[in-house]
């Protein structure tokens, strides 16, 4: 394609910048200065701004070897399982490191162009599909994974075979309000980390003035140790599409975007095929299911490597082609979202739950949870555990049962030393504090949070200070640089954990780490900076001896 063809292909569409950049990146293997000049002129973006925005994204190459040079995951699980060595062995091909690429259940992922290969060493690298979740080990009733293991589920026929799109068919027979009330009644809440009640979000967008409204699926899944959205999208893409279309019906939104992380290249193809199938079957597009005036235009936009673009304000700026700093809140996306118009931003898992909730009822969903907790949560379990993978648990489920009964416990001869919560954002829970139930109330009681449900296991062979260092290094790498406490704080905390701190006494070390942590938690402009100090806090709480010897080593 010529420059002009690429530009013309996207210029009239919503959110054109990312796909244009991707197209040049694909064609030339990197984004050249000439391309940047052409794009800036065509989209009327100031040149300095476009240049700077491109540098924000980890995966956009501006030099050769570029896009097709291998990127090896050295994320927090992979670096303990051969990632670092694999990177070393691929250096001759121009390999570079990338943060957690969301394949912690099937390591080590290597991204080459638009394909993910996995393997423990250079010779065994192989392109294979995302692992399916294992059968539920406790025979617990599921919502999200209810049908995911069925043959042909990722195609429309297979999806329809077990009742797919019935929820949409029935929902449009009644009013928006009934659908919204049902979702409110089910107590479904955001599964992307913040846990905001989904029905209330939809209600706010339905009631907000301004159009066109948008539904955005947050498929950025950047949190280390989280790989549930990938499994859902790869194996049950229509569940997501049906959920988004239901959200569109409930809110009157006509535009939809799936903001997909760069590290899931094959997922884009799977989603696009499913969208095309749905379009052809009249389940997307104009007059959906023959209903007059029910239009929903769904498009995929791929990110380019930035954890912060999972934060909704940053995601919206990224979609709009702006510098992806988070936005100041309020106003919230429900009133000032995509292009400052009312917008639902929901996680993949949240949206993929909706169709089953509509089909089986609010009470059914609520009752899936244990005790007073409603519903289920997919937990991505990885690290030093026998059976890593995605497990759908009822809220309120025992962590110990998940670790030992469902996932087979630690590897032979090892014991669990600690696990993380919320991927990395919740910090660590140590072995003697694992008698918790998996629900926000309980986990928050431990000074942590469940968040998106990533749990990484560290056994007794691991150095917890170095695990904490790698975690903090991730946050420093991903801090957007907008606000002072996080931009400087993540850097200083990484330095305090890197073993090069020769001058500090234990007392001063602790005072500095505490002061930085508390200023980050209290004053950071978004959740990244607020959450990062969970790492150092929990390290200090559970592993004071390890810190002492870390400082003595110097």
């Amino acid at each position: 394609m010529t420059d002009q063809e690429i530009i013309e292909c996207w210029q009239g569409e919503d959110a054109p910048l990312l796909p244009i950049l991707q197209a040049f990146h694909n064609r030339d293997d990197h984004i050249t200065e000439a391309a940047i000049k052409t794009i800036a002129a065509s989209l009327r973006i100031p040149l300095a701004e476009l240049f700077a925005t491109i540098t924000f994204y980890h995966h956009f190459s501006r030099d050769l070897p570029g896009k097709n040079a291998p990127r090896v995951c050295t994320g927090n699980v992979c670096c303990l399982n051969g990632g670092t060595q694999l990177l070393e062995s691929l250096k001759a091909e121009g390999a570079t490191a990338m943060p957690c690429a969301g394949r912690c259940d099937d390591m080590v992922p290597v991204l080459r162009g638009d394909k993910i290969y996995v393997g423990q060493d250079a010779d065994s690298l192989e392109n294979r599909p995302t692992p399916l979740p294992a059968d539920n080990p406790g025979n617990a009733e599921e919502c999200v994974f209810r049908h995911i293991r069925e043959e042909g589920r990722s195609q429309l026929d297979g999806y329809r075979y077990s009742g797919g799109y019935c929820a949409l068919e029935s929902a449009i027979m009644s009013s928006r309000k009934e659908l919204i009330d049902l979702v409110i009644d089910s107590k479904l809440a955001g599964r992307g980390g913040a846990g905001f009640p989904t029905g209330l979000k939809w209600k706010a967008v339905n009631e907000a003035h301004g159009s066109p409204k948008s539904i955005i699926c947050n498929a950025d899944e950047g949190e280390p140790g989280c790989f549930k959205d990938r499994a859902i999208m790869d194996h049950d893409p229509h569940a997501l599409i049906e959920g988004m279309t239901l959200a569109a019906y409930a809110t009157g939104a006509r535009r939809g975007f799936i903001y997909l992380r760069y590290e899931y290249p094959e997922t884009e193809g799977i989603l696009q095929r499913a969208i095309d199938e749905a379009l052809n079957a009249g389940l997307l597009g104009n007059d959906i299911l023959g209903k007059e005036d029910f239009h929903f235009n769904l498009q995929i936009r791929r990110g380019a490597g930035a954890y912060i673009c999972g934060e909704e304000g940053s995601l919206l700026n990224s979609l709009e082609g702006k510098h992806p700093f988070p936005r100041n809140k309020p106003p919230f996306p429900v009133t000032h979202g995509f292009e400052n118009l009312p917008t639902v931003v929901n996680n993949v898992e949240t949206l993929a739950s909706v169709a089953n909730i509509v089909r089986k009822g609010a009470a059914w969903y609520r009752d899936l949870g244990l005790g007073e907790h409603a519903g289920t949560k997919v937990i991505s379990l990885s690290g030093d555990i026998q059976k890593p993978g995605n497990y759908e648990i009822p809220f309120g489920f025992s962590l110990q049962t998940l670790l030992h009964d469902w996932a087979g416990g630690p590897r032979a001869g090892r014991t669990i030393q600690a696990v993380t919560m919320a991927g990395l954002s919740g910090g660590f829970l140590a072995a003697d504090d694992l008698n918790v139930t998996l629900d926000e109330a309980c986990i928050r009681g431990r000074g942590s949070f469940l968040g998106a449900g990533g749990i990484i296991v560290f056994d007794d062979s691991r150095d917890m200070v170095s695990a904490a260092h790698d975690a903090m290094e991730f946050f420093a790498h991903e801090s957007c640089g907008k606000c002072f406490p996080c931009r400087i704080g993540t850097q200083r905390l990484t330095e305090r954990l890197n073993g090069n701190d020769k001058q500090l006494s234990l007392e001063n070390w602790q005072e500095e780490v505490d002061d930085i942590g508390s200023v980050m938690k209290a004053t950071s402009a978004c959740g990244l900076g607020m959450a990062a100090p969970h790492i150092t806090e929990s390290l200090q709480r559970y592993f004071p001896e390890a810190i002492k010897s870390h400082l003595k080593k110097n």
Partner: protein
Amino acid sequence: MIAFKDKSSGTVAGSLTIDGELIEFRDGETIYQIAERCRREVPTLCYDERLEAFGACRLCVVELEGIHNPVASCTTMADDGMVVKTKTEALEKHRKTLLEMVASENSNLDVDPLSGYASQELGQLLSRYNANNGRFAGNKSGDSNRDDKNPFILRDYDNCISCYRCVRVCAEQEGDHAINVMNRGFNTQITAEFGNDLRDSQCTFCGQCVQTCPTGALADKKALRASDLPGDISKTRSICPYCGVGCAVDILTKDDRVVGIHPAMDGPANEGALCIKGQYAFDFVHHPDRLTKPLIRQADGSFREVEWDDALQAAAAGFSKVREKYGRHAVTGIASGRAPHEAAYTMQKFIRASFGTNYIDNCSRS
């Protein structure tokens, strides 16, 4: 209660309590603006009242009753009934920690005031909070660009604290979008496209970025030439001599030497803005070639220095001669399009009344 004296301009939107005092506010006011109005001295580093509030430095955080974390007062709109505290022990401690963190990433905290209008802001806050004490030592975040060859702006990013005021003033006030934020996190840098020198960018050298920089990371190269001159800096309010806009300036002098120009933030015509000429083109003042007396050309072509009276007499005589010899329409006046109203008015009066011709126009049409 602090109520508005002048009820006419804009309706009162509500009232909130700041540090125990009930205060009225108008629609669209932020907590910070109200606090400033009531002289609370809330510290800031990323704030410039001319720019959209950005919320980067987090020094302006205040406590809001009913909300767990403090909020940035600069980006938070006032709401009726809010109860705000601007100066609790916890807030002051956070502010001090933040300032210590900022100090730790900078290589030079002793900044020459000739660097720019706002260049002392960081230094002043550090001493107010007694915060420059070497805690949090570690890597520096700057990547100096001192060898940018432009003659006006020193780019010493070793002192940069990533407040992005320069980027925002360039975009929001100037509309030039010459600079932006490259990379992210601790590695952010201020850059023109492709890392170019400013001369190879959209920069018009208006100097706005220099004047809003709170650290002297962007500094006035021309003013800094005078940093070794003895004497204190004094400021004289004046009007830029170049064009009809009439930007207010503060002329910086050491003894009787003009050493630099600051835009006047309260100048009614410019509100802190200047262009390259008003900002940097003052060297003519002390230039040896500058004419300081009128000259009259002699018969042999050489010039003779005279007093103003003689010069004006000679000019008047010349004009009269032309009119007598060739008639009143032999004279035409072309006024500078950049002259202020008053001068343009005087010019047309002069041409019409004293020569009796309507041949008067201005250069933008001729």
